[in-house]
């Protein structure tokens, strides 16, 4: 049981990273970034390729994939967000959906539709803490996920960039009046969000041992459900819900059957939407935007 809880925690922490990326963009810009799952896929894919093709050590590959995904976020802003009319709320969501589809097709055409597999050499040894079996990879994944989330929390609450993001989230006009370059904040929001997704992609890749080009529409889109479960725009909500879904999935696959695991996030989503539409931890959207 403890073993399953730990495994669930590890799985959940990567879910949290994905959900936090959705939440960041939604919280600051009020749009669904439907290309986020593909940023996550790109990160995982590039991470594996860097290790396989260039023999880069894992930390460098992780860094490289994170930066590459961050650049993807920059492109996403320039191509899909900035030129699009925001007055029609669906427009940016649809343009990001299109961007994601293009990315996925691009990867399939360039690298084929088969999953990319991490070299076995990377899958380091396991060890025991008391009765619990933990792999080094899992520990690494958990530590990195936690570090990234703490870093983001610090950024949002303690730095000037974070404060200007929160100001932009509450009202773009007021932020501009205070001298905040909202375009710059927007770019950085997309870049940070995508970079987190890229890192999550590598971490999931390490866990699964492989990344499929279609993972963006399976695990990636699950992050969207997790964000809504936690409460739209609520970063800490997304974090906790990610862990929660991870643990529930693990318990389900062990005690009910692995094929039911993927049902968890969506079932929870429906329950939350019916019983508590503002999300488990409440929504932080500012409705009275002027």
């Amino acid at each position, binding site marked *: 049981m403890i073993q399953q809880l730990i495994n669930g925690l590890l799985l959940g922490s990567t879910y949290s990273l994905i959900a936090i990326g959705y939440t960041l963009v939604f919280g600051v810009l009020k749009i669904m970034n439907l290309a986020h799952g593909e940023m996550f896929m790109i990160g995982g894919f590039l991470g594996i390729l860097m290790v396989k093709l260039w023999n880069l050590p894992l930390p460098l590959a992780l860094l490289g994939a994170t930066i590459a995904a961050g650049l993807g976020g920059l492109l996403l802003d320039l191509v899909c967000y900035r030129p699009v009319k925001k007055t029609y709320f669906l427009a940016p969501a649809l343009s990001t959906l299109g961007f994601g589809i293009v990315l996925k097709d691009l990867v399939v055409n360039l690298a084929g539709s088969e999953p990319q597999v991490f070299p076995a050499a990377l899958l380091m040894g396991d060890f025991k803490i008391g009765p619990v079996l933990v792999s080094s990879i899992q520990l690494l994944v958990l530590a990195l996920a936690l570090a990234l989330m703490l870093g983001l929390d610090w950024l949002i609450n303690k*730095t*000037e*960039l974070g*404060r*200007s993001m*929160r*100001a932009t989230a*509450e*009202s773009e*006009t*007021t*932020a*501009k*009046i*205070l*001298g*905040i*370059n*909202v375009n710059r904040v927007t770019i950085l929001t997309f870049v940070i969000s995508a970079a987190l997704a890229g890192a999550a992609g590598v971490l999931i890749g390490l866990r699964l041992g492989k990344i499929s080009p279609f993972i963006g529409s399976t695990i990636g889109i699950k992050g969207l459900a997790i964000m809504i479960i936690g409460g739209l725009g609520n970063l800490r909500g997304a974090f906790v819900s990610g862990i929660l879904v991870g643990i529930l999935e693990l318990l389900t696959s062990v005690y009910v059957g692995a094929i039911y695991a993927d049902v968890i996030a969506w079932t929870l989503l429906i329950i939350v939407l019916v019983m508590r539409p503002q999300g488990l931890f409440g929504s*932080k959207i*500012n409705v009275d935007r*002027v």
Partner: protein
Amino acid sequence: MLEVQALTKKFGGLLAISDLSFRVEKGIIFGVIGPNGAGKTTLFNLISGIDRVTSGRIGFNGVDITPLKTYQFSNLGIGRTFQNIRLFPNMTVEETLRVGQYKNHTGLNLLGIRAKEKKLKEELDGLLELLNLGDKRDHFAGELPYGHQRLLEIGRALAGHPKLLLLDEPAAGMNEHETEILGEKITRIKELGITVIIIEHDISLVLGLSNRVMVLQFGKKIAEDVPHKIQKNPFVIEAYLGKGEEETHYVVG
């Protein structure tokens, strides 16, 4: 300081500001009065860069600011408050003022900024003291009483070191005592060397504070003079002052 020439603003077919010209000298308090819908807030939106002018020129210290981006107005030294308070409800008083200080330190706070950080902290303490908000630093802006919210919004504008401060109905919703304190604060702000333009329906407050007063009606200037002459201007009395006291002040955005 501020030179407005032949300013016109149309919203579709509606003429909100029509061929308006006036000057504001450095270091004074300049009052703007007029009935609701006269174009006062529109004027502020143009001077602070929220709305684009239809035609005309706004000179700020000799520079035409009309082509600038909204966020650049603040960097030039124009700060403002809003008629319907626009604070960030989920930020504390301290964080609100820190956001106001934004343009004074760009980039992430990493190395070598310790001295600057110290200076910003000191300024922040000074602002809290000026506005009597010292014991509220960790309160959320959205939870403050109304009068304090108005003061905090002024503080947020001051934190950006404005040369020109635009106050849009700062006394709205305040009781007599709070209005009196507000008046003292605005005088203190003027003494700091900051030029103030104030839109206000509280006619005794605006006549008492201002060095010059401009009266707007239907987007046009109908009078501009020193306060005691404005008080006696028959056009002004008819257009505004005569029915000012009993009127319910509907807020027009």
